[in-house]
């Protein structure tokens, strides 16, 4: 496979400014420094409501990671990267969650992460269901207790029951992307299974929220 090398000079001119700003962050595959505590480790908290809130706070390490927050913006504009900078190119969701008319998210984001052959950005993230979260599910700007209350509210959680929230967090493919974000992007803490177990334990213990 060869690059269209005769175009490389023009390409370099176009990409230089962008790649200087969007240099890849060192990946953190299975980052051992950011594990999730197990459900069992909360067994020493005897008060069930306190245990439930503590379990949710642990799950919040995932919920408030850039991998999740970037597409749960309070505006209709996604952010990107671990620094959660504004998305480039500037995107708005318009009247849906898939980008403006004529420029759907899928223009750049395919069904899977796509490696690149250019310097600076190792891969373009992708998933078959790539989209922004609906505005009522915005997480950016909220505290973890506020997000917790939102997750329990069917008007703000996609009309899901708590059992459906557990299934969603445990098995949804787009949620799972947070642990398979492609080269050049840090993963969410722990694993999807560990995160799902925390959410399930949170619900089983009464779905109590951390205090503000």
């Amino acid at each position: 496979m060869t690059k269209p090398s005769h175009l490389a000079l023009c390409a370099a001119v176009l990409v230089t400014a962008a790649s200087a700003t969007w240099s890849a962050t060192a990946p953190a595959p299975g980052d051992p420094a950011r594990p999730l505590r197990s459900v069992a480790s909360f067994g020493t908290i005897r008060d069930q409501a306190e245990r439930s809130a503590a379990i949710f706070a642990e799950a919040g390490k995932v919920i408030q990671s850039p991998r999740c927050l970037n597409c749960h913006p309070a505006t209709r504009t996604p952010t990107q990267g671990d620094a959660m900078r504004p998305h480039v190119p500037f995107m708005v969701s318009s009247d849906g969650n898939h980008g403006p008319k004529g420029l759907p998210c899928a223009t750049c984001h395919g069904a899977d992460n796509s490696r690149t052959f250019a310097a600076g950005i190792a891969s373009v993230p992708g998933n078959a269901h790539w989209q922004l979260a609906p505005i009522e599910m915005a997480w950016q700007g909220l505290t973890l207790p506020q997000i917790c209350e939102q997750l329990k509210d069917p008007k703000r959680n996609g009309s899901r029951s708590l059992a459906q929230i557990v299934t969603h967090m445990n098995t949804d493919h787009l949620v799972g992307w947070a642990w398979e974000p492609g080269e050049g992007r840090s993963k969410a803490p722990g694993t999807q299974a560990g995160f799902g177990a925390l959410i399930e334990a949170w619900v089983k213990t009464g779905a109590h929220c951390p205090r503000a």
Partner: protein
Amino acid sequence: MGNAVKLKVNGEIHDVDAEPDTPLLWALRDLVGLTGTKFGCGVALCGACTVHVDGLPRRSCVTPISAVGEAEVLTIEGVGKTPVGKAVQDAWLKVEVVQCGYCQAGQIMQATALLTADPAPDDAAIDRAMTGNICRCGTYPRIRAAIHAAAKQRVA
């Protein structure tokens, strides 16, 4: 060696021999021989490589051929045979949009995608849909004018 892959481009089937992760842009330019689609950044930031896949815009530099499958690929060489693409190309000439021209294949493909989805976009809708197509020459005002002209031509 790669694998034998059939690509349907501008209505014709092309047999190419390439690895599944070969970007569609590479296949179009180096294997099919359609060099109208340009390499700009290689990371979907500039829009120069825009083509249509099953009628929707795609940045071909980050689209592996494995993701294309049997889908219909439309490039700048074929877009003029569609009613919307013809209107866009006519408007581009009428308004004299092009300066150096390097980005314009992508601009035309993106503008055609916009007008297919929204036949009468206002300035804000044009800006939203064209924001990912960069032009070093700064032809943006003429691009916007040409899109309006193409929309009017379609209505007339």
